[in-house]
Each structure stands twice: as structure tokens, then as C-alpha cells.
């Protein structure tokens, strides 16, 4: 339960920290940390406007997307506590809950009948498809390393397996989770959330027709997804057996660090050309594959 609450709390601060980092990096005074929350609460008070070309799918998609993300949070463990929902192979459940949310976001974009939104939906589906192997290869590697197939067991046994090379897996895991989070949330270098041209958009173009309450739900979903990946990163770099209060502080520290990294990336990095994105995303899978091979060799799984 603590993990679930911590993810919700860190999600509130996440977009604000990104905004503050970007403001400081560009020398502007900028909005406060809670400005995105204020914007979202304003949107939540408003009603939604639906185009006459849209149907039921468009109206229910934001709620389904948010609920799938909340379900996915429930399988993420914190410290040595078991997650709210934990079972063998729950990482598959986690990944496909997020995929289900994305599926509804995509068909809701197609439901509007806009050619721009269809284009964005196609790109989102393609990039998500390319990043999926990276996540699965990495978790498969961790699963092979620890001998368990649920998030709670994998992360609670991650640092106590007695393997001296766990730091390599931590670093690679941290890197792959950062890249996965950036790609899944359509941030730089794959997509720019602040872009103004529909032709170059990916995620933003899909939600052009959403307004008011629905738009707030989509924004909240994005913050939660960031916090989920921040939580996964935390789990691969901090041993689960440490003191719980220290763990809470470290958790908030890692989430803040992740938000600062995202803010700095968005301040100083240019966006990829659209045709370079598939290669960039595939290279993340290749890094995950390296982790898999290294674990395969170092744990002598092949020679058995």
C-alpha cells in the first residue's frame, strides 16, 4: 500500500519539477511546482465537449486509460513489501494493462475521424510496439537472474542473490527504464510535448479533440506513468532490505532526480528526426539484449 501511495504522491510533483527544471535551465522565472496540478484541477471542474463525429469509444477511452494505469501501479512493489496485487508473471499483466490503455487511446484518436489524429495514433502504436521488446527482454533477464517471475519477488531478491555484477544490471536497468519512460510518455528525444505543428506530433496530436475533464484524466495518466517508471528505476538501484524511512526518502529523491533528468533532457536535447526514431528505440532493445546475454553467461545458465 505504501508503494501505491508514494507513486500517487510523486506523480503530483513530477510534472511541476520538470517545468521548474526547464524554467531554471532556460533562465526564466517560470511557473511553480504545483502549476500543472492547478491546471488539471481547473480542467476537472469543466465539462467535456464531444465532436458530433465521435462515438462512445471516444467518451470512455480517457477513463479506461487512467484506470488501466492505476491497475498497473498495483503490481509495483516498494521496499520489501509485496505489491497490492502480486502473482507469478505479473510483469506481463503490468505491460499489457498499459498496452490496453494505449489501445483505447489509439482507437479513440481514430474515432474522431481526423487524419492528423490517425497519423499520431499510427506513430504511437509503432513506437510502442518497438519499445515493448526492450521492457520484456530486461524483465526476462532480471527474472532469469533472480529466479522469480513477479515484480515483488524479482525486486526483493535483486540485491541478495550474492552476484558481484549486480551493479551492471542496475545501471542497464536504470538506463532502459528511463528510455522506456521517455518513449512511452512521448517525451524528448522521440516526441516533443510542446511542439506546435500537428505533422510532427505523436501523442499530443492524438488528444487534440479531448477537452475539459477528459483532458485532465489524460494528463493525470501521463504523470502516473512517469511515477510508475520512476518507481521501477528506484527498485533496480536501491536494495529492498534497507530501513523503510530511508527508503521513502530515497524513493522521493529518485523520482525527483528522474523528473530533473527529463527536464534537463528537454532543455538541452534536440528532438530526433521522425525517421531516426525507430532506430533509436530499437537501440534501447539492443541494450536490454546485452543485459540478457551478460546475465545468461555470468549466471552460467547456458552451460547447465
Amino acid at each position: 500500500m505504501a508503494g501505491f501511495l508514494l507513486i500517487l504522491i510523486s506523480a503530483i510533483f513530477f510534472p511541476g519539477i520538470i517545468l521548474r527544471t526547464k524554467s531554471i535551465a532556460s533562465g526564466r522565472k517560470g511557473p511553480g511546482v504545483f502549476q500543472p496540478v492547478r491546471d488539471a484541477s481547473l480542467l476537472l471542474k469543466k465539462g467535456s465537449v464531444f465532436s458530433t463525429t465521435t462515438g462512445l469509444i471516444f467518451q470512455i477511452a480517457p477513463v479506461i486509460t487512467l484506470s488501466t494505469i492505476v491497475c498497473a501501479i498495483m503490481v509495483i512493489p516498494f521496499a520489501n513489501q509485496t505489491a497490492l496485487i502480486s502473482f507469478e508473471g505479473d510483469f506481463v499483466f503490468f505491460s499489457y494493462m498499459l498496452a490496453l490503455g494505449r489501445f483505447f487511446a489509439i482507437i479513440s484518436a481514430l474515432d474522431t475521424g481526423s487524419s492528423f489524429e490517425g497519423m499520431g495514433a499510427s506513430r504511437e502504436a509503432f513506437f510502442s510496439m518497438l519499445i515493448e521488446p526492450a521492457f520484456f527482454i530486461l524483465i526476462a533477464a532480471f527474472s532469469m537472474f533472480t529466479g522469480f517471475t513477479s515484480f515483488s519477488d524479482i525486486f526483493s531478491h535483486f540485491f541478495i542473490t550474492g552476484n558481484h555484477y549486480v551493479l551492471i544490471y542496475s545501471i542497464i536497468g536504470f538506463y532502459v527504464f528511463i528510455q522506456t519512460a521517455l518513449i512511452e510518455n512521448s517525451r524528448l528525444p522521440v516526441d516533443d510535448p510542446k511542439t506546435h505543428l500537428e505533422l510532427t506530433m505523436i501523442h499530443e496530436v492524438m488528444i487534440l479533440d479531448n477537452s475539459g475533464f477528459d483532458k485532465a484524466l489524460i494528463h493525470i495518466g501521463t504523470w502516473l506513468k512517469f511515477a510508475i517508471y520512476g518507481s521501477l528505476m528506484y527498485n533496480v538501484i536501491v536494495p529492498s532490505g534497507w530501513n523503510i524511512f530511508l527508503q521513502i526518502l530515497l524513493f522521493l529523491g529518485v523520482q525527483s532526480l528522474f523528473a530533473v533528468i527529463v527536464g534537463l533532457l528537454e532543455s538541452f536535447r534536440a528532438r530526433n528526426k521522425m525517421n531516426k526514431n525507430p532506430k533509436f528505440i530499437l537501440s534501447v532493445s539492443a541494450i536490454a539484449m546485452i543485459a540478457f546475454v551478460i546475465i545468461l553467461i555470468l549466471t552460467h545458465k547456458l552451460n547447465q
Partner: protein
Amino acid sequence: MVIYLIVLFVVTLVYFASAERLVTYIRLIGAQGLLLCGIALFELREVNTINMIFIVSETIAFKAFLIPYLLNSIIRASGVTKVHRQAIPGFYLLIFSVLALIISVLLADSLVNPFVNTIYMTIALFSLFTGLLLIVTHKLIISHLIGFLIMENAVFVFSLAVGNEMPVLINIGILLDIFVGVLILGFFGLRLKPHTNELTILKD
């Protein structure tokens, strides 16, 4: 410690598949030289001191500095900065590279024996396949040369795998370094014409 260097070495090999600028290739070749020097330092414990000093100094001088310097000179002289536009897109090259990694693991596993270190064998095979892929999929002669350098690094890694038992193999690997140095110098002497359009071309 050596395992960290090996992981970095593999990352540079994957990077080769996604890079598009020749300057990046040259930096990666230089980085591989330094990594191989580190790996040799940590791995070769049973080699005598003089031989060790020779191996380390040769690796740094040739692999990390001289060869990258010569390649840089070729790029500056020819004005070629990017790989040929008819080269296979990096996306497919990355897929082939990952496949090569899997094949290397399976091949090294099937060739396992007590005298050869499996991880070195895997990395050597992966390096060999990456070099071959670069040669097969690129059109410029400089890319071919870099592919050959990667294969030469593969030979060096393989000689490290059996280096403690057969130190002479490492010295043979070093002879290959010198051969590559001479080959690159030959580029200056040969004055290859642009657009020869035979087996390989110098310019895009």
C-alpha cells in the same frame, strides 16, 4: 572489473550498428582500443612483465591513437563525413546486430571447453560478426576498413581468451595491428579515385 570493460566493449559494438557518421566510428574504434588495453591489463596475469608492457603500450599506441589519427586524416583528406546513402538503414543493421549477438552466444556455448573463456569467445564472435556486417552492408571503402578493424579487435579479444595459455597468439594479433596501420597508410599512397564504382567506392 574486467566484466564492466567487456560490457562497455559490447555497447560500442552495438553503437557501430546505429552510428551514421564516420567520426563516430573513429571515436568508437579509439574507445575500443582503450577498452582492450584495460581488458588486457586485467586479464593477462600470467604473461611476463616485459611482454605485458609491450602489449599494453602497443594497444594504446596503435589501437587507441595511431589508427584513429590516420583514419581522421583520411576523412579530412577525402571530405567524406557520413556513411554512403545506399548503405542498409541503421534500423535493419541493429536487428542484424542483435541477431549476431544471439548467434554468438549460441555458437560460443556450443564450442565451450575448459581452456577458452566463454565470455571472451562470445564477445570475439560478436565483434567478428559486427565487422562482417559493416563490410557487407556499407558501400564506402572507409566503412570497410573500419569493419576490418573491428574484426581485428575480435582476433585480439579471442587471443586474450587463450592469452594465458598461449601468449604468442597475442603477439600475432599485434602483428595484425601493424598490418592494418600499413594498410591505412597505403590509402595515402594509392590515391584512390572517387567514383571508381568497382568493388568499393571512396566517396558518396
